[in-house]
């Protein structure tokens, strides 16, 4: 169990899901994440699990909803256009307080876009892609090992808070091969029972799972209860990484694959004697506002780098509150920023402030 295995990200994701005690996958084919369902279709039937190819992403997420109501750990993965189709179901699951884990292997958009890596679904992930007042916990790993490490966290958070947890990945993380180590192997039978499940009223009165309350005063109460839950999550579950941030004059903010690229940017700029660090949000929601704001007095400016046209930028600005300049560099439509072009942009800004 402690040995390292060389795996493609999309397959490591699937293996991590199985080792998190999940035996149910419902999904629909879409590039660039097909290796994940294909892995499940090979493995799950051999270990008493269920791989089911749904007729659409709309159906898949509602199968996830049903399985979640039955109290089992359940997972689906998709890519941007498919994730848009799942928003209806995700809104219902959120309104019903049942746990589920979904992965979006983000590709270029809008519309059919392309199949190259992107981060342009940040708004959809963090500001509510479906209707109603709700949030997902959004985890954004930046390496295949971090995917492996965050998957059991995603399931635990989903179960703990009875809500949807999204793994926000991109095509690079899915296609890249890396050596990974699995430090866990959770058996479904060892997971705690859920008293609220709907599998038949045996030895108890009926359980009902619904997102409906036709009385506005009742529905407002449900929303306020969700708000309390989200507040607790904002207090307890924020995750982020600070890389070479001890003595900084400049801070670059980036997440996921871009965060990984920016690590190299930081390393190279430091070789030139520039005191720069990386702040990498791992939970995109809840966003680590306070933790980022703690750098306002230490730095001359912030640079936000993303594979979109400035979506996390809004959260960075909310944290910095105009107290220091915030610059943005982004590539989009499936283009991946290189270390050199980020460095060049950074140095241009450095010149401007001098």
């Amino acid at each position, binding site marked *: 169990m402690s040995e390292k295995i060389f795996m493609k990200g999309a397959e490591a994701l699937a293996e991590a899901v199985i080792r998190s005690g999940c035996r149910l996958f419902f999904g629909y084919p879409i590039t660039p994440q097909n290796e994940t369902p294909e892995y499940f279709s090979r493995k799950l039937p051999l270990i008493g699990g*269920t791989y089911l190819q749904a007729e659409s992403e709309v159906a898949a997420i*509602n199968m996830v909803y049903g399985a979640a109501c039955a109290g089992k750990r359940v997972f689906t993965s998709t890519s941007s256009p498919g994730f848009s189709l799942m928003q209806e*179901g995700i809104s219902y699951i959120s309104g019903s307080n049942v746990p589920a884990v979904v992965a979006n292997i983000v590709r270029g958009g809008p519309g059919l876009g392309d199949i190259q890596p992107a981060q342009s679904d940040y708004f959809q992930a963090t500001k509510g892609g479906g209707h109603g007042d709700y949030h997902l916990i959004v985890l954004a790993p930046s390496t295949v090992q971090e995917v492996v490490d965050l998957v059991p966290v995603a399931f635990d958070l989903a179960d703990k808070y009875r809500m949807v947890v999204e793994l926000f990945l991109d095509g690079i993380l899915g296609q890249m091969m890396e050596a990974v180590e699995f430090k866990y192997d959770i058996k479904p039978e060892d997971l705690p029972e859920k008293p609220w499940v709907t599998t*038949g009223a045996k030895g108890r009165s*009926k359980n009902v799972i619904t997102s409906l309350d036709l009385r506005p005063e009742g529905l407002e109460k449900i929303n306020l209860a969700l708000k309390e839950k989200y507040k607790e999550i904002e207090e307890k579950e924020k995750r982020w990484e600070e890389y070479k941030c001890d003595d900084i004059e400049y801070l670059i903010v980036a997440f996921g694959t871009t965060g990984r690229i920016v690590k190299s940017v930081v390393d190279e700029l430091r070789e030139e004697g520039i005191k720069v660090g990386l702040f990498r949000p791992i939970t995109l929601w809840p966003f680590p506002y306070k933790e980022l704001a703690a750098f306002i007095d230490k730095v001359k400016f912030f640079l936000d780098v993303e594979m979109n046209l400035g979506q996390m930028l809004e959260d960075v600005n909310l944290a910095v509150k105009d107290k220091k300049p915030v610059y943005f560099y982004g590539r989009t439509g499936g283009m991946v920023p290189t270390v050199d072009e980020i460095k060049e942009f950074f140095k241009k800004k450095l010149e401007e402030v001098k």
Partner: protein
Amino acid sequence: MTVKPIYTFPKSLEKKNTHYCPGCHHGIVHRLIAELIDEMNLLEKTVIVWPVGCSVLGYEYLKTDGVEAAHGRAPAMATGIKRASPDSFVISYQGDGDLASIGMAEIAHAAARGEKITVVFINNTNYGMTGGQMAPTTLVGQKTTTSPYGRDPNVCGYPIRVSEMLATLEGPAYIARAAVNKPARIVQAKKFLRKAFNAQLKGLGFSMVEFLSACPIQWHMTPIEALNRIEKELIPYYPLGEFKVKEGVE
């Protein structure tokens, strides 16, 4: 001399007033489900997936576990429950707008997969809950709030016979159409529903009973006129009977 009860309130039915309109058939069908759950001792394993539509609050009226699905997605949700909990007895309760329009993909694929669930399909030829709009099952010439001059097939095509269509698939074990507009028909409907329940319990595949149902308010009829409309207009287009009976269904 002891008096033997021949008719009692079903144990699986909640003793409360429903929100259904006078003359609506949801109540009769709820009762048939509850009677069979009692007779077949299924309360402890039954989960009913309730739809968007008039029966959206169905979980208030039965003592079974219940979940509330998104519009049209009940068969997908039922699939998820059944796959996660194969010992559960899973019913997907749906209306005609839900099942035959927005949820056509979900119902067709659940049937094609032979999903071991039972679908109770209420066909009242219109969208009752939203105020009586045209449904995919609305008869040619029928006036609704969105076909005020009568359904014109040149504009919106023809009503779908869902039971016949799904019966062409290999996956279903049992498909039948019933009505509950006369006592004898209620007896027959219950027989059909029992077979559908048995098909699931025996693991034979997908099962469905379509119920031609009255909607007096949206049809702008008295309850009696609505019963007659089922006889004179609906049954000639939507014939009653069994369309698929796989070997072993009883």
